[in-house]
């Protein structure tokens, strides 16, 4: 696994952005950038190439589900892996995210082990389809 992949962390809470960033650092991924909602995330995504987006769902500006749909609708980044890390835990929301094309779903509160497990699963699938 290339540890130098570029990862965009999207969450309106700075604490959660820092937590995800630190956990990624612990796993060896240090090439990260941050955005505080879907709108600012799209700006970052259009500025530079990213290999993975980790996004919250519930944000004051553009929510994560709309960010996911915008990514899937843009031919330039429609295959970009998206991991949702969110407190939204209703069955119909998980199905909605799946139908919108999410690659993984972590429910807050989560453990470092769960985040690692989901990232491994995403990279494993990407490796299999590459």
């Amino acid at each position, binding site marked *: 696994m290339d540890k130098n992949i570029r990862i965009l962390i999207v969450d309106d809470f700075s604490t959660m952005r820092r937590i995800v960033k630190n956990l990624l650092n*612990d796993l060896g991924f240090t090439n990260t950038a941050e955005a505080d909602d879907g709108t600012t995330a799209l700006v970052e995504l259009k500025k530079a190439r990213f290999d993975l987006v980790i996004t919250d769902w519930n944000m004051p500006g553009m929510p994560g589900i709309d960010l996911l749909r915008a990514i899937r609708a843009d031919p330039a980044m429609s295959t970009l892996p998206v991991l949702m890390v969110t407190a939204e835990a209703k069955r119909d929301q998980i199905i909605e995210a799946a139908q919108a094309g999410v690659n993984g779903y972590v429910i807050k509160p989560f453990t470092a082990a769960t985040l690692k497990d989901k990232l491994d699963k995403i990279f494993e699938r990407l490796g299999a389809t590459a």
Partner: protein
Amino acid sequence: MNEGLDREVLARHLMEALAALENDDHAAWRRNVDELIQWRAQPLVQGITRLARELEQALGDGTGPASGTSLTEACARLEHVVALTENASMRTLDLVDECSTLLRAIEPAGPAQAELVAGVRSRLSELTATQGYQDLTGQIILRVVALVRTVHAGLGEMIGEAEAPLRLSSDHRGHGPAVAGLDAEPASQDEANRLLSSLGI
């Protein structure tokens, strides 16, 4: 309110509305029907006004009449709690960072010590993840703040316009963490995994 007088006024408006209808007098018809609607809505408006006053008093300090700003103050206090917990959480993360730096300076003398260092490092990662409580409690508090602000603004509008609906926006932007006893039971990570697995993810 005098019930006899009420009945008399009501009957007069009904009769005048009927007469206006028979005479094709649209202005008089509308005026009398409006009076009837206003009469009908009056108990609702009075009830809402009383509720608004009681809500203000309940959220005030209870030592005097409502200031009219206690709802706003309540929101500010809740936002202060969010800021305090965020600061505490950031401080904890600073200390975790410092511990990680100190840990990197340790050169394990053998496999047993290396295992101990790895164990501490793994627990520091979990300590970092646990700080996510700040995000979860913050989301719940900010949702309450949004509710109080909606009630505050909505009550003002309703007093002027009785039929205006009062509701929180319920769109697809999410609802925040589920609260036990208030919200539907949330899915666990295992349930989410099974659900996603059944959907081929």
